[in-house]
């Protein structure tokens, strides 16, 4: 075989190989990259297609800013609380030394609960903690305690965060369980025989080893809550001013229609989830010199 024909056959092989993943990349382009890119470009254009920063400037009106802020708060609170609680649950299931049936039960239940989101979840919490919900009623009946007199409202910030936890915690459990399995018994024993207390083992070995997955999962929970529409919409209608609901109303044309402002809203959301991901990647590379 001549060098030319080798080169050609190799060339042929390469283009062949590319063809195998072409459908995937076409799909990704059409349904992930282009739509997102279109919005990002549109955010910097006016109705006539000229470059403008006006849409971005519009984002800085108080009602929109506060929507972003509430969204970020709800997402951060439910992500961090979900991560902490989920971590302890996963810990209890894996390392707590509980009976063997606990763990598979916990995992199955987490699988179900993490997917039990959206509209039905809102119904469930309304039926439980709404003004006529079971728990609300029972608290009044047996403890003479009116939940709603404390300022609690399911249709508010705290209610939404509490509801989101219903899928955030199980998601954390699902992801942390294999991560906790990855902690080798030998590490704990090696630490212990070197004189470390249980706390020192967690502080110097286990938590640093788990740190990337802890951080990554918390971030995933954040994005999960930040982009959620259905639960909030079904729970609060449009009474709670969060950014997804604002965008939803924009798209539906329920409110004063301004397409390019919609783009800007979307751009803001992408920026926030994108930036938090970049932050994660940066933290990870910093904290993880020891990873291959």
């Amino acid at each position, binding site marked *: 075989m001549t060098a030319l024909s080798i080169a050609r056959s190799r060339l042929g092989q390469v283009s062949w190989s590319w063809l195998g993943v072409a459908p995937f990349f076409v799909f990704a382009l059409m349904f992930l990259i282009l739509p997102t890119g279109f919005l990002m470009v549109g955010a910097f254009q006016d109705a006539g297609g000229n470059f403008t920063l006006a849409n971005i400037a519009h984002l800085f009106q108080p009602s929109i800013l506060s929507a972003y802020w509430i969204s970020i708060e709800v997402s951060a609170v439910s992500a961090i609380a979900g991560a902490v609680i989920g971590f302890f649950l996963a810990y209890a299931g894996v390392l707590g030394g509980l009976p063997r049936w606990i763990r598979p039960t916990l995992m199955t239940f987490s699988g179900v609960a993490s997917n039990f989101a959206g509209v039905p979840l809102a119904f469930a919490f309304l039926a439980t903690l709404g003004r006529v919900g079971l728990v609300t009623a029972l608290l009044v009946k047996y403890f003479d305690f009116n939940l709603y007199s404390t300022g609690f409202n399911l249709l508010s910030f705290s209610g939404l965060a509490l509801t989101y936890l219903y899928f955030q915690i199980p998601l954390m459990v699902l992801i942390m369980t294999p991560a906790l399995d990855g902690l*080798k018994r*030998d*590490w704990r*024993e*090696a*630490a*212990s*025989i*070197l*004189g*470390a*207390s249980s706390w*020192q083992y967690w502080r*110097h*070995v286990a938590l*640093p*080893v788990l740190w990337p997955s802890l951080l990554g999962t918390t971030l995933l929970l954040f994005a999960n809550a930040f982009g959620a529409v259905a639960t909030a919409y079904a729970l609060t209608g449009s009474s709670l001013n969060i950014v997804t609901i604002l965008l939803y109303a924009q798209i539906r044309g329920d409110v004063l229609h301004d397409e390019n402002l919609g783009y800007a809203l979307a751009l803001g959301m992408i920026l926030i989830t994108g930036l938090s991901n970049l932050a994660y990647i940066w933290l990870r590379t910093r904290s993880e*010199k*020891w*990873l*291959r």
Partner: protein
Amino acid sequence: MAFLEIKDLRKAFGPLSVVQNFELAVEGGEFVSFLGPSGCGKTTTLRMVAGFEQPSAGTIRINGRDVTGLRPNQRNVGMVFQSYALFPNMTVAENVGFGLKVARRPAAEIGARVEEMLRLIKLPTLAGRYPYQLSGGQQQRVALARALAIKPQVLLLDEPLSALDAKIRVALREEIRSVQRKLGITTIYVTHDQEEALSMSDRIVVMNEGRVEQIGTPFEIYNYPRTRFVASFVGTLNILRARVTDAGQRRIAIDGQEIVARRGLDGTASGELRAVALRPEAVSLSDPGGERNRLQGTIEDVSFLGSVVRIRVRFKENAISLDTFNNPGLAPPEPGREVTVTFAYDDVLVLEGEAS
């Protein structure tokens, strides 16, 4: 009193009794190996000494102090694991210094000690590497340094070399032994590799099914196994079934052919069935003449192992393996040939207990 004293140690997991009546006294600076087949309880015993498992009964004393109820982090014991168990998130130096760090020693002291340890294991330039950047052999040496950095009273090693390949195993074996000698640290070494145990140890504890079969120096264990188990586990012994024909005259019969057995016949009665051990290297196909045992049999199998040719000779019920050196000028004998094998009276070892 011995430095490390284990008295009547037992361990059961539920109904399963894993270690029974374990007794051992280790002198200061001594290197003792636990040798035995997989599942015989070596690791479990070692883990009780380390404090990872609570014994079901018995006591463990280190340097006169009863440590049976103490947690691992209160025992001042060093341990090296089969899997190395280095902390992946720490550099070599941080790993080695970990024990001192959690004991809140000043940084200067930690630094000096780490440097000393890395020099001891001959890896002074790798202080800044992470475990994944080291070979298996290097990782295990770091693990050794980490265990020694806290100046433990006792060093425990659980099959530290079994994850490494053969060459490094031999090199590291010698290195561990020389470090141990240099520091004079009391050491227990778990292995199921008899060569390792024989070459490294001051004394060997041969274990089987949770029990101590025999404790002795490598020389004693190899040359004077007390039980059939020890004889078959250490070395490649021939085990034969023999009938004691005349206990007084020290005569026994193997498949009807009478021989003389010099060792281990005390306390037996004529007519008893006993197991008899015979080392392959003690048996010869040539006959130097003189006072020797002679047995007639048929060559059953010849296997060529390179420098050595292993020949199996069958009598009736029993068979013997023997090794001859390969001689390029001489073809190995053919199977089916009638031969006479010879061995000295002293090489026949009658084992404890009835023949099975």
